[in-house]
């Protein structure tokens, strides 16, 4: 069984995975997903970027779940459908990134402001058996204790 990232070049894998942002070489603005053509800063006309890994930990900006199976192109991971939770997480770089909560965690596992860390987990399986992986947010011990 092979595992490959659902999107190439968006996050690193391994024991300490991280999201890969772009950093504008002219003004330092970070963007995720990566900006490849233009800088978002209206005061900057930079068009060259370098990769920059974002912090692996952040705090929950907000959270929810999907009680009904989302429509395609969402690929179901189980039959019958199992609801999953999502969190928007604010990283120290001043950017909020959405992702599912790590498997086994639901909306009761977090609060606004709770600390989480980035993990990479299987997301869905392709017809050829390839497992696609995605970044997810895992509540850290501090959060569980804080509940």
């Amino acid at each position, binding site marked *: 069984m092979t595992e490959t990232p*659902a*999107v190439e070049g968006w996050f690193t894998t391994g024991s300490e995975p991280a999201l890969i*942002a772009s950093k*504008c070489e002219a*003004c*330092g*603005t*970070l*963007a*995720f*997903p990566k900006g490849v053509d233009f800088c*978002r*800063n*209206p*005061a900057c006309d930079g068009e060259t970027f370098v990769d920059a890994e974002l912090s692996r930990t952040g705090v929950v*900006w*907000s*959270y*929810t*779940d*999907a*009680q*009904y*199976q*989302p*429509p*395609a*192109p*969402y*690929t179901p991971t189980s039959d019958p459908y199992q609801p*999953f*939770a*999502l969190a*928007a997480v604010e990283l120290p*770089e*001043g*950017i*909020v*990134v*959405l*992702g*599912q909560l790590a498997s086994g965690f639901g*909306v009761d596992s977090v*609060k*606004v*402001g709770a600390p989480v860390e980035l993990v990479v987990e299987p*997301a869905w399986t392709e017809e050829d058996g390839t497992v696609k992986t*995605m970044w997810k947010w895992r509540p850290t011990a501090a959060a569980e204790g804080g509940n």
Partner: protein
Amino acid sequence: MSNDVAILGVGMHPWGKWGHSFVKYGVKAARAALADAGVPWQDVDLIVGGETVRNGYGGYVAGSTFAQALGWNGARVATSYAACATGAQALDTARSRILAGQAEVALVVGADTTPKGFLAPNAGERWDDPDWLRFKLMGMTNPGYFALYARRRMDLYGATSEDFAAVKVKNARHGLNNPYARYRKEVSVADVVNSAVVADPLHLLDICATSDGGAAVLVTSVEYARKHGIADPVKIKAISTVTPTFPNTIIDMPLFSTESTAAVAAPELTFKESIGHAAYEEAGIAPEDVSVAEVYDLSTALELDWIEDLQLAKRGEAEALLRAGDTTIGGRIPVNPSGGLACFGEAVPAQALAQVCELTWQLRGQAEGRQVEGARVGITANQGLFGHGSSVIVAR
């Protein structure tokens, strides 16, 4: 020189699931607006259509589609698309040409037919389209975004599911006597909190449906209105269609990240705050002067956000207003007397115009069964995908 334009006529086709072409709804609304104004179609020298993206080529050129359906009359034509703010942008186009002296009588029309269930992206693999990717990568639906905002209100300001339900109860009651509303039925707090959870903490009855519908507004120069014996028409005082200011730090549908504050600090106002702020500035009207508001309650909790974004309450205090009955008809600042999206369901290119229709009836004292007594100043607000949003201020 005054920057006002006069609203001489408004009209709507009732919202629902009628199964007709969007053209039928648009023409019905247009003829109602013309009749309301007492202006013949032949006098219209500009028609602006709100584009609908789900109805083929005719929808992409909605302005000319409506013009042809009404019978070509030689009017100039424009078509606008700005997601949920489409109607307001179309209205702004009409206003600009009138104020520039390039048009005198403009008809603005928006209409739509909508699919059932979740709004899903178009078919096909599009790995560079955030609207496709959010479903593909993480199963993020529109209600998911509404739920993020709702949950923040709960964790930060102590809002409860019962508060959100109370918004639905209020709006359902407001819309009971609105002949254009699709849902005209009382709803209880128990009905809402016992309906299925779609995206925690939001229940099925917290989230608005999608509908067919059509709305039209006939605007003219103040001069033209006077010549036609209408000395005191409802006037448009402001139309704000501002875009966000970098970095936009609130996560917006359909994106799955915000802009970073690493290099540039967040602006003083959030995007939604800036929409209303620009309208107040343009109108020279303060939030305290507003007597009635029509805001985009895609979810019950979003109505509470909008009340604060429009400075009708301080941040975190919209629930207090709601609980005190201030936002109910008869209260200090009634919100969504039409019944809002809760009673209508969203018909994208028509919705921002429907808000203006309702405020016009309110300011004329013609909102039978849902009248806000003595309404003099009304404000609308909505927000759509990809940096679109609008706020219109009307006054008498």
